């Protein structure tokens, strides 16, 4: 089984190729270069493994939450490759991919959503399995609530809002790892058993998990707030 995976939901993006048990990954450095470099990196990764796109079993991608444009880059590239190669895609929760780096136990994956807000979700990690305890939400960092238990906190939210998060919830954390980001390697590892289980979808069914869905005010809302039509 060959699975190509893409994860471009934050500034440090990466792609990976899983062939059997072996995963090779490449990081795409610099925010503005993701779109410039992603296809070349995919082509080299495939060439190095001696395979072509049509030899892929599926394309997995980190479907969010994260930077909107980054999510669409991964999704669009996954859709294009899948259509061109006649294969399926598999959207993988970016926060689950992040949580898998946290090791055994309860993991709170939380990333910086800008505007003083965080994307976060809770997972139970057992070996290579990541089960959601509660689904992804977007809230002000100062309003994040956490259920009982000993948690590992992982992700950029802990770097962006260290005082707010650790000040309020410090005693709940058995550890904090603020430097980890969602990576394509874990996207591929989470995808592999699901590809085998026949969970791939067609490219037109690939949905993104934006979480933040209110992105503009309607004319009626602007007027109600004293603005102009």
């Amino acid at each position, binding site marked *: 089984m060959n699975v190509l995976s893409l994860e471009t939901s934050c500034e440090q993006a990466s792609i990976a190729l899983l062939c059997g048990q072996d995963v090779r990954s490449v990081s795409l450095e610099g925010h503005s270069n993701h779109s410039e470099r992603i296809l070349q990196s995919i082509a080299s990764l495939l060439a190095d493994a001696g395979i072509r796109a049509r030899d892929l079993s599926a394309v997995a991608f980190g479907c969010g939450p994260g930077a909107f444009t980054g999510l669409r880059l991964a999704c669009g590239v996954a859709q*294009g490759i899948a259509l061109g190669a006649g294969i399926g895609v598999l959207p993988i929760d970016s926060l689950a991919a992040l949580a898998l780096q946290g090791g055994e136990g309860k993991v709170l994956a939380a990333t910086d959503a800008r505007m003083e807000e965080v994307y976060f979700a809770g997972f139970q990690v057992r070996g290579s399995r990541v089960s959601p305890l509660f689904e992804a939400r977007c809230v002000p960092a100062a309003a994040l609530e956490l259920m009982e238990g000993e948690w590992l906190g992982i992700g950029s939210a802990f770097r962006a809002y260290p005082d707010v998060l650790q000040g309020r919830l410090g005693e709940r954390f058995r550890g904090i790892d603020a430097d980890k980001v969602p990576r394509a390697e874990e996207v591929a590892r989470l995808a592999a058993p699901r590809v085998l289980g026949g969970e791939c979808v067609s490219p037109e069914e690939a949905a993104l998990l934006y979480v933040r869905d209110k992105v503009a005010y309607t004319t009626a809302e602007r007027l109600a707030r004293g603005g102009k039509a």
Partner: protein
Amino acid sequence: MKVLGIETSCDETGVAVYDTEAGLLSHRLHSQIELHAEYGGVVPELASRDHIRRLPLLIRQTLASAALEVGDIDGVAYTAGPGLAGALLVGASVAESFGLAADIPVLPVHHLEGHLLSPLLSADPPAFPFIALLVSGGHTQLMRVAGVGDYTLLGESLDDAAGEAFDKTAKLLGLGYPGGPQLARLAEQGQAGRFRLPRPMLHSHDLDFSFSGLKTAVLNVVSSEAWQPRDAADLAADFQQAVVEVLCAKALAAMKAAGLKTLVVAGGVGANRALRLQLDAATAKRGWRVHYPEPELCTDNGAMIAFAGGLRFAAGERPAQVPAVRVKPRWPLMELRPPQVA
């Protein structure tokens, strides 16, 4: 050569297949007008979200309606700019990666080149060289077109585009979204001649345009104490006549100066009935010809992109760079060159 064309520069998702031998095989369009209506204008983030939701299915339907398989496609053309960055990125990522996976060449296409060449898709196509009047919500330009990629800018709007003036004036008159076509419909019910609106730059002795003053003149009328809302249709008619008169006069002046008897009109405002009537009458009187795109190809669409890409592929052009998802939200048409043979 069968070319898959993809357009996602603003608020229409368009896909088409153009065959350089057999012509347009199929095209599909999804308009986002309803999505943006309650916001009173295009919301870029929502536009991008809708493009990525619709594009793969639209590609599949377009191929299916021409009974084609992915393996039948020989090349891909997509709109790389100008337009909304996030919206363009959707088309670019899908198009470039489709080409990579299917191992076929991919060409970035200039959105306005698509519009400009779209009348060549009609049953009675114009021959080069001709004068082109490009009128849309984003552009008002007069060009001399000597061939594919051989464009000379003769004049353009110094402020608002003609379509933009229609939209803004519609807003002043309290019309819904999208305003331009609604204003044109209202104008049909009115009688021009009651309001003295300016004809901006009609006598400027060049081929440039300015429409923002006209919008201000309308604002002055509707803000005056004498204003009666029941006069809106008459005001709309006067506004439309002012725009049409200037567009028409400058287009004819451009033809005269260039010594060309063929005019091509492209872009959304090219669908305006009053503009077509006046251009048809003025050119007929002189024995000149004016060409428009087929009505369904006046808006943004994938057919014009597949076609422009097809012309470039057929001339021997091939992608110059390694594959990349690269868009040009601002991309002057004058940067284009004739097809570069690889």
